[in-house]
């Protein structure tokens, strides 16, 4: 990875805790690191280590207790709910473990969803959707409902939905966690291609070392502390 690229994500002294009854449970403690443009970062760690919470904070779907998160130069910890929603629509592409597609919408309609928040015309939206579905190799399944697709295909639709707005950042939370080995490999190949060929910056939370191997950089979280930073072995 080229180190001279500017950081797209800058995290400084980030802390987050949850309240469980009267107890305050720290989840992230004083986290600081940068993610550079075009990087593919894997966040690893045991369950409860805070990796999904960190991902949620970077994606602007959770609020930090203290610290700063800048994405593309924008300090997102100070944005209001509405501003954050607008910011997410144009800057973040989400890939979830359970695909999280809307079951009553076809593949085309699911991918079109984020584009409804843009000023694109119906025809332009359709063009973008078709390109995104072609990129993930589902041009022949456009009018299928999620229930008619395999897990791997559903995840590819979810990836198409994540990239259709051409966001600044792709965040993936255990994207292969619900897939068999073959489908998982296909998804990781696809994410690798998006990173290598389209220059997408990807942050992926995973338990799976094989998935993490695809990243340029692996960061380990343990009990809310970022303690090791390894380059991936390729």
């Amino acid at each position: 990875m080229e180190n001279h690229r500017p950081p797209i994500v800058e995290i400084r002294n980030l802390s987050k805790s949850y309240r469980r009854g009267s107890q305050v449970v720290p989840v992230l403690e004083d986290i600081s690191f940068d993610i550079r443009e075009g990087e593919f970062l894997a966040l690893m760690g045991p369950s409860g280590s805070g990796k999904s919470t960190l991902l949620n904070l970077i994606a602007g779907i959770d609020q930090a207790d203290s610290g700063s998160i800048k994405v593309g130069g924008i300090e997102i910890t100070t944005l209001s709910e509405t501003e954050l929603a607008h910011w997410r629509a144009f800057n973040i592409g989400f890939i979830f473990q359970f695909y999280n597609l809307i079951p009553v919408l076809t593949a085309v309609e699911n991918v079109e969803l984020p584009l409804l928040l843009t000023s694109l015309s119906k025809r332009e939206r359709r063009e973008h959707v078709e390109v995104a579905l072609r990129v993930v190799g589902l041009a022949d399944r456009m009018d299928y409902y999620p229930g008619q697709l395999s897990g791997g295909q559903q995840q590819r639709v979810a990836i198409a939905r994540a990239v259709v707005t051409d966001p600044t950042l792709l965040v993936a939370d255990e994207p292969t966690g619900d897939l068999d080995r073959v489908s998982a490999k296909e998804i990781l190949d696809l994410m690798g291609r998006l990173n290598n060929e389209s220059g997408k910056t990807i942050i992926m939370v995973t338990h799976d070392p094989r998935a993490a191997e695809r990243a340029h950089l692996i960061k380990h979280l343990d009990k809310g502390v970022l303690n090791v930073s390894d380059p991936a072995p390729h």
Partner: protein
Amino acid sequence: MFLIRLLIKNAFRHKLRTALTVLGMTIAILAFGLLRTVISAWYAGVEASSANRLITRNAVSLVFFLPISYKDKIRQVEGVEGVSAANWFGGIYIEEKNFFANFAVEPQSYLDLVPEFVLPPDQKEAFLRDRKGAVAGRKLAEKYGWKISDPITLKGTIFPGNWDFTLQGIYTGRDKTVDESQFIFHWDYLNETVKKVLPRRADQAGFFIVGLKNPHLAAEVSTAIDAQFKNSLAETLTETEKAFQLSFISMTEAIVIVIRLVSFIIIVIIMAVVANTMAMTARERIGEYAILKALGFGAPYLAVLIFGESLFITSLGAALGIAATFPAARAFGNALGQFFPVFNVAPGTVYLDIAASLVVGTVAAVVPTVRAVRIRIADGLRRIG
């Protein structure tokens, strides 16, 4: 358009649940519409009453009569255009269950004062000529299969004996609010017979129908008429026809209140049912709402989805309910025609049905929308999988 398609698709995700909710709404709107129509039917006489007419009756009670000589004195009161004497006859046709309103009236003046009874000229002339002639409303004639020139016998209850009439006319209502199930005949025929068999009850009228030159002067004319007979043996009470009709309704007001209350209770019950459906729906989809929020959809989008789905379900139920109300009201009106001669679904009832469905749909969606909007995205996403 996309959101409308999505909310309609959402509405049919659980087909059975949606079908049952729509059915519940349909039945509720049907019941609400019928009960409102019963109330309208109750007030049909009031609605049909003319602002141009006053009713003068005995101040003590309607069961006491007034001397027929009052007629000329009333006619001389400033602002009075015409007067007609009438008596409630209370006759029975063959057997008691065949109840309908029947009055002895002064034919010419009565028909002049009640133009909403539309009678063909030849029938009117025949009726005026024949002292034993009678006129029946269209619905009444249809019910008993009466035709012009048919002999009809009523058994008197207030005025004993068998009273023979010849049907000389069949009137139709000028509009849908007019009662087409009344029976009228010559007051002279009644009076002449009463003179022979019950002389002390002769030359008396049950009430006078008073035509006004100017309906705005109803209060002044009423006061002037009653002043004429102050301190007489038979003091009068003059009121507008509307007030006269309302005085009958007031006797049964408790029933109307109960019907009105029940109609609103039905709406409250269906509101709870739809609210429950929407709460279940929103609870099941909380993860999806979290995803939509993560994708950047704000509260207004979620509100459109949830309110839209709720309103779609209630509107569908209301549309079916309203469509069913008309044939049901027709059947109801046919079965209970003797109690409710005018049983029509009023436009106001349809508007109330629509308003009720909008209120139910809106109220049912409030709590689920608030929950969906307030859910933290991270918490919502945790519920998936």
